[in-house]
């Protein structure tokens, strides 16, 4: 399986993971280790001054996993730029997963604000990884303004509905000159394998691993699925067709009995 390069950084794994929804940081680390993910997302929030937060940062840093802060919670481009600048200070990285979703009910990404924020963040020296709807036109615009990849959704965040956006993902993958990372909605390893088979460069998984009864085993399942899907893509899948096409040579021996 070939390596994936984003902004000059080499990834041996094409499975990226989120850190939300795990029952504990130990469970999270077990799952991430089994997944062999080399990049994880984190969020930022106002510090809880009364309660100590579970420290997930230290074990991630000890494992050498690359951190990708997101701008979750931002409702506008202005808020997202502010969140990205805070994240750059907090986690000492100029990489950012740009997320702008003004409506908490469906968490649909706002494409217009995302494009505005991406342009500004790129001017400020960020490596911008925008989370967007599976919109081929928008993905191309984001590529043109200098995003290092695009992250179209498979289906709504946390929905486990898989690649509901498949026809549009295929157009994005066909057109894109930057890596395409399918994000959101991937609910099963088979969804991840399918994303890789159709040519996605990577997938980002969180809920499906975090809420599994056995998160570590599910992490391994996703690793294997992503590897299988990518290997199949690189091997070259056969075309689908309606008519039968024999895999054994057709001989006349049955005909000879009549």
């Amino acid at each position: 399986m070939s390596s994936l390069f984003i902004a000059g950084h080499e990834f041996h794994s094409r499975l990226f993971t989120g850190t939300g929804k795990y029952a504990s940081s130990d469970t999270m680390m077990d799952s991430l280790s089994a997944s062999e993910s080399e990049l994880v997302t984190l969020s930022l929030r106002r510090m809880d001054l009364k309660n100590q937060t579970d420290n997930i940062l230290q074990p991630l840093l000890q494992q050498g996993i690359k951190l990708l802060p997101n701008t979750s919670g931002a409702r506008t481009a202005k808020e997202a730029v502010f969140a990205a600048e805070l994240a750059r200070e907090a986690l000492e990285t100029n990489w950012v997963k740009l997320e702008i979703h003004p409506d908490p009910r469906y968490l649909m990404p706002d494409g217009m604000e995302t494009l505005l924020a991406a342009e500004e963040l790129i001017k400020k020296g960020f490596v911008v990884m925008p989370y967007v709807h599976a919109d081929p036109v928008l993905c191309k615009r984001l590529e043109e303004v200098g995003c290092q990849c695009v992250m179209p959704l498979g289906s709504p965040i946390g929905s486990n509905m898989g690649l509901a956006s498949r026809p549009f993902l295929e157009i994005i993958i066909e057109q894109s000159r930057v890596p395409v990372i399918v994000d959101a909605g991937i609910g099963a390893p088979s969804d991840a394998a399918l994303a890789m088979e159709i040519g996605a460069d990577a997938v980002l998984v969180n809920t499906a691993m975090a809420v599994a009864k056995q998160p570590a085993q599910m992490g391994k399942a996703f690793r294997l699925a992503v590897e299988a899907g990518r290997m199949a893509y690189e091997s070259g899948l056969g075309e689908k067709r309606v008519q039968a096409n024999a895999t054994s040579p057709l001989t006349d021996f049955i005909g000879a009995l009549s």
Partner: protein
Amino acid sequence: MKIMLNDTVHEFVGETLEDLLTQLGKTEQGIAIAINQQVVPKSLWRSTELNEQSQVFIFESIAGG
């Protein structure tokens, strides 16, 4: 001195942002600070002095997708 910290009044004994973190018992790791809507780089925490007009927001990294 009273400052506004994360939208609540906070009694602060000290001078700088670094003093505030010490008072709160927080380390630098995974933390970002903004004063009056401006992000303050970590390199300036030691020299950034607070006053009663300071609106301080401290952010921390948490789990997320």
